[in-house]
C-alpha cells in the first residue's frame, strides 16, 4: 500500500471515531430520556431551571431536553421521528392533536405507571375535562403548560377614551371604534388586535354557542355560530377598520400583535394567558386582564400543551420520562411553573396553595385567568380535529380575513373540504 493510502486509512479511522462522537444516537449508560420541547424565551428559562432542579438528585434519570422550534414544527418532527424510529420518550403537544395520536397508537397509556391514579389534576385542563369523554379513555396526556385566551387592555387608553372594559361583542365593537386613532390614512393606534387563528375563532364560536365537531362526529365548523365568529372579524377589519389585518402566519402573528400592544399601538389585545408574565413585565403601562367578551355564553377553549409519552420509545426511557412527568406535577413544580409564566396551575393542590398564600389576591390578573376554569369548553375527541385546524381552518381564516370574502360561503367551502380525504 502506498503511504498515501495508509495515511488515508489513519485519517479515516480518526474520522470514524469523530463520527461516533457525533452520532447522536449514542446514549450514555444509566437512565435517560429525551424530551423535545418548543419554547423559547421566558418559558424556556423556567423549564431549564426546573430541569436543573430535577437533576440535582443524582438518583433521578437524566432528561435530555432539545429545542425543536414552535409547536407545529416540533409536532411534525415528533411524528416523522416515530416513523423513522428516532422518537423521543417525552414531548408535549397541543390539545387538538392528542386524539389523533392516541387513536393512531402513538401514545403510551399512562394508567399503569406508578402514581398515575393520584395526580390530582385540575379537571378542566387535564384530559378528563379537556375532551368530551376524556375521563372514560385511557390516560395518555398530562397537562403541562395550559392556557386560556384572555383579553389584555391598556387601561390608560381606555380611560382616556371613556371606554369600559368590553363585556360582550357589541361593546367590543363600540370600544374598538372609540379607541382607534387615525392619522390621515394611517392608523396610529388600533382599537383591537387579535391573531387571526384557529384558537380565537373557536373561542368566538364557543361563546356564540357552536361546536366545531357535532355529537355525531360530523365537522360542522360551528354552523351559524362559526359564521358569526368569522363575521365579527370581517366587520372589525374591513367594515369598521378598527382591527389590524393579519400579518404573517402562526407565531409571527402572535409576536406582532403582542409587540403592538406593548408599544402602545393597540389598545385591546386578545392573546393567551401564556404571555401574562411577559406582557406584564415588558409593558410600560398598567395592564389589565379580563375574560374575552362573550356572545351568548361564557365558554373558552383550552390552549397550550400536554405532556405525552411516546409508545415507540424504549421501556427504560419511558419509565425515566414518567418519573420526570410525575415530578413535574408535584405541587411545588406546578406552582412555580404557573407563577413564573402565567400558565394555569395543573394540580388542585397548587391552586389551593396559591389561594391560601394570597397569591391570587396579590395578582389579580392571574385570578382572572383562574376564573376562566369555570368556563372551559372541552374539545371533541376527534382524530380529524388537528387536520381540520391546520389544513382547513388556518388557511381558510387567513384567506377569508385577508380578502374579506363572505363568512358563510367561506365556511361552507371549509365544510365541504372537511369531507374530502
Amino acid at each position, binding site marked *: 500500500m502506498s503511504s498515501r493510502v495508509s495515511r488515508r486509512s489513519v485519517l479515516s479511522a480518526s474520522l470514524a471515531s469523530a463520527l461516533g462522537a457525533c452520532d447522536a444516537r449514542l446514549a450514555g449508560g444509566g437512565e435517560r430520556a429525551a424530551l423535545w420541547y418548543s419554547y*423559547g424565551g*421566558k418559558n424556556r428559562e423556567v423549564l431549564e431551571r426546573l430541569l436543573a432542579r430535577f437533576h440535582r438528585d443524582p438518583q433521578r434519570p437524566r432528561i435530555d431536553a432539545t429545542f425543536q422550534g414552535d409547536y407545529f414544527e416540533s409536532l411534525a418532527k415528533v411524528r*416523522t421521528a416515530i416513523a*423513522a424510529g428516532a422518537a423521543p420518550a417525552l414531548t408535549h403537544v397541543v390539545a387538538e392533536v392528542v386524539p389523533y395520536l392516541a387513536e393512531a397508537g402513538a401514545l403510551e397509556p399512562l394508567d399503569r405507571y406508578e402514581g398515575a391514579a393520584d395526580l390530582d389534576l385540575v379537571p378542566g385542563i387535564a384530559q378528563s375535562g379537556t375532551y368530551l369523554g376524556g375521563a372514560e379513555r385511557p390516560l395518555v396526556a398530562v397537562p403541562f403548560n395550559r392556557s386560556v385566551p384572555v383579553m389584555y387592555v391598556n387601561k390608560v387608553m381606555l380611560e382616556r377614551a371613556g371606554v369600559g372594559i368590553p363585556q360582550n361583542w357589541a361593546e367590543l365593537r363600540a370600544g374598538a371604534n372609540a379607541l382607534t386613532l387615525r392619522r390621515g390614512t394611517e392608523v396610529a393606534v388600533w382599537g383591537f388586535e387579535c391573531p387571526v387563528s384557529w384558537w380565537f375563532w373557536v373561542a368566538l364560536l364557543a361563546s356564540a354557542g357552536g361546536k366545531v365537531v357535532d355529537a355525531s362526529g360530523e365537522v360542522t365548523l360551528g354552523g351559524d355560530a362559526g359564521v358569526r365568529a368569522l363575521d365579527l372579524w370581517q366587520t372589525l377589519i374591513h367594515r369598521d377598520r378598527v382591527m389590524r389585518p393579519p400579518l404573517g402566519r402562526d407565531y409571527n402573528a402572535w*409576536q406582532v400583535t403582542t*409587540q403592538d400592544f406593548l408599544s402602545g399601538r393597540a389598545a385591546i389585545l386578545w392573546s393567551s394567558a401564556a404571555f401574562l408574565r411577559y406582557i406584564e413585565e415588558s409593558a410600560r403601562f398598567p395592564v389589565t386582564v379580563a375574560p374575552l367578551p362573550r356572545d351568548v355564553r361564557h365558554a373558552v377553549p383550552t390552549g397550550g400543551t400536554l405532556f405525552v409519552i411516546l409508545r415507540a420509545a424504549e421501556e427504560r426511557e419511558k419509565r425515566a420520562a414518567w418519573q420526570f412527568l410525575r415530578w413535574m406535577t408535584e405541587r411545588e413544580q406546578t406552582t412555580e411553573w404557573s407563577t413564573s409564566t402565567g400558565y394555569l396551575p395543573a394540580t388542585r393542590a397548587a391552586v389551593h396553595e396559591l389561594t391560601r398564600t394570597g397569591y391570587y389576591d396579590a395578582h389579580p390578573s392571574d385570578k382572572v385567568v383562574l376564573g376562566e376554569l369555570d368556563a372551559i369548553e372541552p374539545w371533541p375527541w376527534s382524530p380529524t380535529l388537528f387536520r381540520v385546524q391546520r389544513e382547513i381552518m388556518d388557511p381558510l381564516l387567513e384567506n377569508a380575513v385577508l380578502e374579506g370574502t363572505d363568512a358563510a360561503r367561506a365556511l361552507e367551502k371549509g365544510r365541504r373540504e372537511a369531507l374530502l380525504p
Partner: protein
Amino acid sequence: MKPRFPVAALVSAVVALVWVGPYTWMAITSFKTLPELLDNPTALWPDALTFAAYREVWATVPMARYLLNTAVMAVLIAVLQIALALPAGFALAKLDFVGRRAAFGLVLVCLLIPAQATFVPVFLMLGQAGLINTMAALVLPFGASALGTFLVRQACLSIPDELIEAARLDGAGDLHIVYRLLAPALKPTLAALFLLSFVFHWNDYFWPLVMTTDDRIRTVPVGIALLREQGSGVRWHLVMAGNVILSAPTLVVFAIAQRHLVRAVTTRGF
C-alpha cells in the same frame, strides 16, 4: 469599455453599499443589546460595542457542537467526493469496459436530480435503516458527487495515455495511478471541487433540517434558523450574532480563495 470616471465611481459606491451594507448592518445589530433594539432599532451605531449577544447565543445553544458537526460534515463530504470521483472519473475517461456508457449515463442522469427531489424517499429509507440523526445520514447521500465525477472525467480526458501506460510499466497499481499520479495532476479541478463542495455543504440548511432532530448532531444553519422561532418577540441581536458566526467561516474561505472560487464557478461549476 471605459465609462466616464465620476459616474462609474459613484455607481460603484452605490453597488458596494448595496452589497456591503447588509453585512455591516448584521454586524452592527449583533453588537447591540435588547433594550437598545427596542428603543431605537435603526441606530447606526451601538451604544457600546458589546459581545453580550454572542455570549448569550453561545450559552443558550451548543454552538461549539454545531460548528464541529458542520465542519466535520462538510469536510467529510468534500473529501469523500474527491476520493470517489477520482477513481470513477479515471475509469470513465480512460478505460474500455463493458457498461462504460451505462455508467456514464448514470452519472449524467444523477447530475440532473436535485436533493430536493429525493429527500422524501431518502428520509423514509434512512428512517427504516435507523440512520436518522446520524452523521451517516448527512454525509452518505452526498458521498458520490455526479458533478465531481463528471468534472474529473472531463479533466482526465486531457491527460495523455502515455503517462498512465508508463506508470503501469513501472508496476504501479490502479490506486497508485489514481491517487498518486492523477490527483496531483488534477489539482486545480480537485481544489475547485473541494471549495464548492465545502461551501455548499457548510451552508446547507435543507438536508440537515430534514434528516436531523437531535441537538447533538445539529448543524449551524439549522441551529441559527431555530434562534428565530421563539414565540414571544424575536431577539434580532441574537439572531444576527448567530448569523455572523454562521457566515464568518465561509467569508474567511472566500477571502483566501476567491480566485479559486471564481475559476471553479466559471468552468462549469455550479
